[in-house]
């Protein structure tokens, strides 16, 4: 659009149409129910588009590593009631993206998986994804509780903390996460303060 046309349209866009233009894209995503591959419809600069496309086309984790990540995501946040699991909303793929996007996470993640695999082989003679679910839980129980874990598994504790962090962030930044949390913002409204009954509860 030429600059002059742009200016002509400013009043229209700014006063009435802009919000309406934004909303259909949002509801499409909501209808899709999970993160959708889409081309930079959130105000990227040309350099940012290039970087994101490069990251999206790269692969960091091996299939074996992804299998471990997926199993851990499933243990950390399984489906509950009508709310899907972390795996169902694509958290493993999100973690892979973060590893590519934030290179400082690569060694803790890859190294953590290696530590877990080694620990699993020591205890049960097999890769983490090949042992029984009960044995997987035995391992997870040893590293999921920082204050109870033995110093010998502190590397596993740090890795599990990181996996818990990324799984929770990955899940709660999806539409299913918003629903589980009851987040009802990010939409036009008229703020008039907290509901009267809430204020009353706290004597305000």
């Amino acid at each position: 659009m030429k600059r002059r046309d742009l200016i002509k349209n400013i009043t229209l866009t700014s006063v009435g149409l802009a919000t309406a233009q934004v909303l259909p894209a949002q509801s499409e995503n909501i209808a899709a129910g999970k993160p959708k591959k889409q081309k930079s419809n959130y105000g990227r600069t040309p350099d940012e588009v290039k970087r994101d496309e490069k990251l999206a086309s790269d692969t960091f984790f091996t299939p074996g590593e992804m299998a471990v990540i997926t199993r851990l995501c499933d243990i950390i946040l399984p489906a509950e009631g009508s709310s899907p699991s972390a795996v169902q909303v694509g958290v493993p793929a999100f973690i892979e993206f973060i590893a590519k996007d934030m290179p400082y996470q690569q060694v803790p993640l890859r190294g953590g998986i290696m530590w877990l695999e080694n620990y699993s082989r020591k205890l049960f003679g097999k890769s983490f994804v090949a042992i029984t679910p009960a044995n997987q839980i035995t391992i997870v129980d040893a590293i999921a509780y920082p204050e109870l874990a033995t110093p010998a598994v502190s590397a596993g504790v740090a890795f599990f903390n990181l996996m818990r962090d990324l799984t929770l962030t990955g899940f709660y930044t999806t539409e299913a996460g918003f629903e589980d949390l009851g987040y009802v913002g990010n939409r036009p409204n008229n703020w008039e303060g907290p509901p009267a009954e809430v204020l009353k509860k706290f004597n305000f």
Partner: protein
Amino acid sequence: MNFQIKETPEIFDVVIVGSGAGGGMAAYTLTKAGAKVCLLEAGSYYDPADPQYITQMKNPWESPRRGASSTRPFGDFDAAYGGWQIDGEPYSAVKGTEFHWFRSRMLGGRTNHWGRISLRFGPNDFKRGSLSGIGDDWPIGYDDLKPFYDKTDKLIGIFGSVENMYNEPDGIFLPPPPMRLHEHFIKKAGTNLKIPVIPSRLSILTKPINDERGSCFYCSQCSRGCNKYADFSSSSVLVIPAMKTGNLTLINHAMVREVLTDQATGLATGVSYVDTKTMAEVSVRAKRVVLGASACESARLLLNSKSARFPQGLANTSGVIGKYLNDSTGASRSGFVPSLMNRDRYNEDGVGGSHIYSPWWLDNNKLDFARGYHIEYGGGMGMPGYGFGMGMQGSNGKYPYPNGEKLPAGGYGSRLREDVNRFYGAHIGMAGRGEPIPLETNYCEIDPGKVDKYGIPTLRFHYKWSEHEIKQAKHMQDTFEELIIEMGGIPLGNKPGPETNYGLEAPGKIIHEVGTVRMGDNPNRSALNKYQQAHDVKNLFVVDAGPFVSQGDKNVTWTILASSMRTSEYIIDQVKANKI
């Protein structure tokens, strides 16, 4: 690459460098008065209402990193391009000193990243030197700027409340938004501790003020730019309306190299810039030159504008340019409020920022540091983004579930869903922003032998905090802890102590730097007179925060706007009187 130097055919009435708060206001005021103005912006075009730029109302899952800050320092959805590091545009600091320089290369500059906090300086803020014996007074006082603060309030729009506090002058306010729940807690704690907690003063339209801008629809996302123009950014509120006058020629991707002068008269004749798309050198001729490139960028530009007549750089007979660089102090603390656990859900987004703040409330004569600070607050049931839910093992073992049961910290499975839900909206944060002592020994200068990718010599910084700022940060930390405990909360993490200067942020991190092109009545100690006009070059003006002698305990954007409007009106008067 094109080494031929191009020249624009037109001689403009005014050329302005930089499209942020200062440059935008000058462009608006001058074009409305009928001047033919050329506005140069180093970065790209930007309009918060144009879908190609919009990040507002996007959901976190539209970003593959869920809004994390890998590419933009304040996250994927922040409107501002640029940051503390820009490829090909380096700067350095003298060993043992530190300064972080945030630049936003786009229309509107850094008005695309800020909290819309719009505070007037009070009468005392212009005369800290004579009041405290430390530092200098301004060559102007509150009464000089008051009419321009008033006009800025009406032109741009600001909400707030009339408080009748001497050094927190009231403006012409739209109604402030009601407090969020945690803000009620903070207000109550502040009242008990005799710390004032009053409605914020933000340039957000809680009521419409004209037909060209909408009013706030409470998405809490001002930092993303507003597609209804319901908050202030220089692009939507100043530059785009200036373009509609037909008097503005906006040139984007124009990285200015130097101010050109006539060696015979000593007057500015225009500027030369590098077209960052083609790398061509272009010069723009104008009868007056106005710099609004940001404090450090304007200083750099003047220091780089050396000639036989101006061997120390332009307008720098005093040698003061670059000196007295000062950024706000900043320190923060967060807390967890158990009585805010298991909250009822409702849309608590509100406006883009805190609905309350605490202006400085104490007398520095009774304290061991010379300047004050204000407090900004955070909290509430905000939209999840990258980082949400992290660190759960730090709190989920400490608090019993509704059935009275406690579980060991960390864990996995369905308890984590309950943990996320019960802790949601129970965290609060507070951050102090304070006035530093401007020092001659804190400065930027041209880095010998270093250039950026456009061949423009770069800056080297020399900046160290003094005891006053460190003690002020200590006072902030004590206050934060008192407030959090008074609200029934638990301060998180360890209280920052002397080993970290009490959590005092490094210089430049708060992005409120001012003072590098000082104004004053004495040409031997200042670069500009009280109208922000160069003592040495009468058709050269600076309208960013470079001219400011000090920065008060207030964020400076509103003062940049009012000062730029005042200087622009002075330019119009001087032109009418045939003086420049």
